[in-house]
């Protein structure tokens, strides 16, 4: 029964939180409405999100989120330095293919999103077989290091969360 | 006091960012660069509205900001998909 009522438990939680971010008030009335919407909307949109990935470890996901936040701040400063101080000819941009073991679309999406959001690297494409990500690095004297860092730091965590 | 100086600085810098985006748009860069410039303009606009919200103290522009952030990317994606696929709904 729970499965039918909550096809996307993670989504329902997110929606519940989103409602409160919107209304900016902690009131019972809002809570009831938020609960109602958090149930109804995922049901309505279920057909648009078939076979959703199951989040195996919620703490893992939250941990991952803060990790990314931190990485974003640190990497931002690095890239800022490159833009401000590094003369154009010294910048070594590179295309880096990153083979991935992730199989769930959500995980792949989050990985490529993380890569893009951490400044300095952008996910440009995926191979037609879905096994390799094409990443463009702004300044990567050692491309392999970037690849390994991505796989180690993010892919392993995502594998634990989703698979 | 320092808050209003900081606000002026932030407003000024994002407005300057606008002008830079305009320069890229007008400079005759490739179409993809121009779309990038416009996308950045949207982001700069979000920042400016938030900052203006802080200055005027009215939380009324939040709905606008939410919508800017939600819909801003749709345009960029549509232009890019048009360039790559020639069609946006297929």
């Amino acid at each position, binding site marked *: 029964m729970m499965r039918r009522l909550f096809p*996307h438990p993670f*989504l329902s939680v*997110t*929606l519940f939180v*989103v*409602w409160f971010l*919107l*209304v900016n008030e902690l009131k019972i*009335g809002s809570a009831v409405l938020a609960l109602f919407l958090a149930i109804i*909307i995922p049901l*309505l*949109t279920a057909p*648009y*999100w078939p076979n959703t990935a199951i989040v195996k470890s919620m703490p893992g996901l939250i941990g991952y989120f803060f990790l990314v936040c931190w990485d974003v701040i640190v990497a931002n400063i690095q890239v800022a330095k490159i833009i401000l101080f590094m003369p154009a000819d010294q910048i070594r941009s590179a295309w880096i293919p990153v083979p991935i073991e992730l199989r*769930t*679309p959500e995980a*792949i*999406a989050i990985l490529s999103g993380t890569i893009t959001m951490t400044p300095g690297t952008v996910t440009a*494409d*995926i191979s*037609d*077989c*879905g*096994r390799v990500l094409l990443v463009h690095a702004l300044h990567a004297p050692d491309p392999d290091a970037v690849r390994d860092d991505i796989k180690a730091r993010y892919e392993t965590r995502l594998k634990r969360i989703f698979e | 006091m320092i808050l209003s100086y900081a606000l002026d600085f932030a*407003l*000024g810098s994002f*407005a300057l960012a*606008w*002008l830079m985006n*305009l320069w890229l*748009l*007008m400079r005759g860069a490739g179409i993809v660069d*121009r779309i990038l410039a*416009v996308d950045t303009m*949207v982001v700069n*606009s979000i920042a*400016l*509205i938030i900052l203006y919200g802080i200055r005027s103290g*009215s939380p*009324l522009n939040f*709905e*606008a900001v*939410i*919508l*800017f952030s*939600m*819909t801003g990317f*749709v*345009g960029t994606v*549509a*232009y890019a*998909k*048009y*360039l790559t*696929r*020639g*069609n*946006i*709904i*297929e």
Partner: protein
Amino acid sequence: MIDLTLALIVALPFIGALLTSLSIRAGRDICALTAGAVSGLALLLLALHAPAVLAGQVVVTRIDWLPGLGLNANFMLDGLGLLFAGMILGIGVLVIIYARFYLAESDPMGRFYAFIMLFQGAMVGIVLSDNILLLLIFWELTSLSSFLLIGYWSHLPEGRQGARMALTVTGAGGLAMIAGMLILGNIAGSYDLSVILTQRDAIQASDWYLPALLLILIGAFTKSAQFPFHFWLPHAMAAPTPVSAYLHSATMVKAGIFLMARMWPVLSGTDAWFILVTTTGLVTMLLGAKIALFKTDLKAVLAYSTVSHLGLITMLLGIGTKAAASVAVFHIINHATFKAALFMTAGIVDHAAHTRDLQRLGGLRHLMPVTFAIASIAALSMAGLPPFNGFLSKELMLEEAAHTTWFNSPWLLGVLATCGALLSVGYSFRFLSAAFFGPARSDYPDHPHDPGFGLWFAPALLAGLVIVVGVLPMTTAAWLVDSATTAVTGAPFTVKISHWHGLSAPALWMSIGAIGGGMMIVGAHARLTRLWQATPRPDAKRLFDAIIEPFAALAQRLTDALHDGALTRYIAIATLTIVAAGLWAFSGGNHAPGTRAATDVPFAAGAGFIVLVAAVIAIVVVHRDRLLSLVLVGVIGLFISVGFAWFAAPDLALTQITVEVVTVLLMLIALRFLPARTPQESSLPRKLRDALIAGVSGVAAASLTYALMLRDAAFPVISGFHLAQSKPGAGGTNAVNTIIVDFRGYDTFGEIIVLGIAALVIYALTEALLAPGHANTRLMPLWPAGNRAGDRHPIMMVVATRFLLPIAMMVGVFIFLRGHNMPGGGFVAGLIFAIALLLQYIASGFAWSEARQRVSYHAIIGSGMLIAGMAGAGAWLFGLPFLTSGFEYVDLWPLEKFELATAAIFDLGVFLTVLGAVMLALSSLSRFAIRAGDRTNTQAFDIDPSPGGA
């Protein structure tokens, strides 16, 4: 004596027209019978009134129609009316009988008799009208029915052209007469003749007399084919002979004469009348007779002789004395008898000898003795020989002419009248000799012989009249002439008609001279004909066409040149007109400059302005690159939205940005099928012209804006109420939203209907374009050209949009619910839902998304409109006007107080309509791509990363 029979007499022929067009189904005889019976009945009714009228009484019928204007269905019957009505109906019956036998089997008789009866009713209407506006109605009706009759044989080009020429000339005359009659009515203070005819002095004293006279005479002269308007009559001869006999001898052409006679009491007697009418009459008499002398076609001879005789009558009316008027009346009667007879005999000859050309006729007196007898009686009377009636009225006419000084010469009129008589003798004798005398010809197609009784009975009767009136004028015609002349002159009059006026009467010698001269002309006809051919003669038809055809060609060129579908020129003209009118209006008033303090410009706003200006200028510069101009439109929309947010208009910012996004999507989908670039087409001068127009408009708009912004409104703005009442009255703090859904909810009701209609139009047009046909075939090959990137539905986009959809819906619901108090509302919520759904279409494809669309967009639009309408109509249950909203606060433990407003139901309707409309519009547009050969997908994304995948 008020009597409705007059109205009935006029109505009968019209009823007859209806009956004949129906009774033709029962056969040609029945049809002719009904026409004859109806005319006969009308004639009978008329006859019933004859004794009273002859005794001097005037029968009147008054039916109010448009008293405010003075146009009433008032009829009157006096001597003049009796004479003409009798003639119209009498000859009408004879023509109906004659036509029965004349028309060929292939000629549609029902239509013929219907038109004849229509014409007859119109003529009777003219002669019996008391109200001159009513007379005008019947007057134009005669033109219209004559158009139909002349064009009866519509397969003949001359029939069509003759009909159009007659309609143009007589119609133009009728229109001129409308002006004349209106002037007359204004002077006299009424449009009823019974009043007008008593206002002689007032009318003739008014300085509007001359224009009225001129305009009325134009009407009369065009109808009666008087010089210079005589040229249409011969071309009317293309009509069947009964029509020629009836319209162009007995009745229609006499309408002008009737009008001059009817208006005689008030219009005649002035120098203007005398000069205009007499001269025109005389010239027409001479010109008509001269032309008749040399025409070879029998009906043309008769037609021009009619013109000549009408000129004679006009001249007599022009002379202005009572005696002359009586002669005019007498000649009207006589001419009707012998001319109708002649026309009918001409028809018989045409029927028998299959030609009307005098040069190919001859010697018919042996072959057609009866016809010869009738024709000679009528022709001799036309020539004015004793003892026939034509001689009597011609004698009296010569008498009158002799005693009238014309252009201060006492004898000139007499001499010219005699020449007229001489010429009429000439063409009458030539007609008889050419057709009937000389050796019997052998080259007739099939042996001509006298026709059946039905065909010669009518002309024979008329010929009989010619003799009887000629021999016993006083007993057979005087009473009618007296009665008619009394009606015309407005005073009692008795006429003395006799053959012999004594040796001293100048008319005698004038007649002798005329007859002698006429004989000589006939003798010398051959030589005179050659002389006639030598003189250049203006061909009226070419002259008429020389005016009309080039005008029509010019009209076509001008119209097509002006309305050639050049939208850019239309808009350029419109813009210049609007700006010019605006400037002209502004310069005419005085403008007190504004008193408001100007607001300063912070740096950020300045930067925004610069970007906006740059984008607008850029769009004009690069407008040929369509994708780039779309991007720039996006920039402009963005900065206007930011501007709205900046200037304290949050609702506008929301709506503008969401509409902006959907518009961009729409334009991009359409751009896929349109050429990517606009070709360079405008020449430099054209660009400068357009730039100038645009510049002027821009400056005007800017200065108007500036003028407004620095001035306060002249009165306190009404929105003060909206601000005051927003919370207490409408239960919401967001004044803009309360205006939209409550104070001016009716605007919004109209507005969502517009949006709904837009979607329906797009859907309908999509269906039309996708249906097999031209557009559809053009779509098929539009497979996107060559290099198209792979990966139609990238995974990251699909996952992101799947995540965003529910969240966007949450934001949509939030904005919907708080719209009443904070920025938001049904529109924006609808647009947000639509954009979220559209993202699914973009990310996962058309087919995949459509498959998940459980409720059709049509249903959403329809229900949205219904809900909005019902929300509005709900107020009726409480006896309140449409769209009255109510709200109260609900306290449901444990929830906080929340507000229930009916406006929310209305806003739900708005929401659904907007959602349905946007989705229907974009999904319809997207179907063009599907139609263009792209294959649809059942999976959300193309790359399958799952373990089992490729």
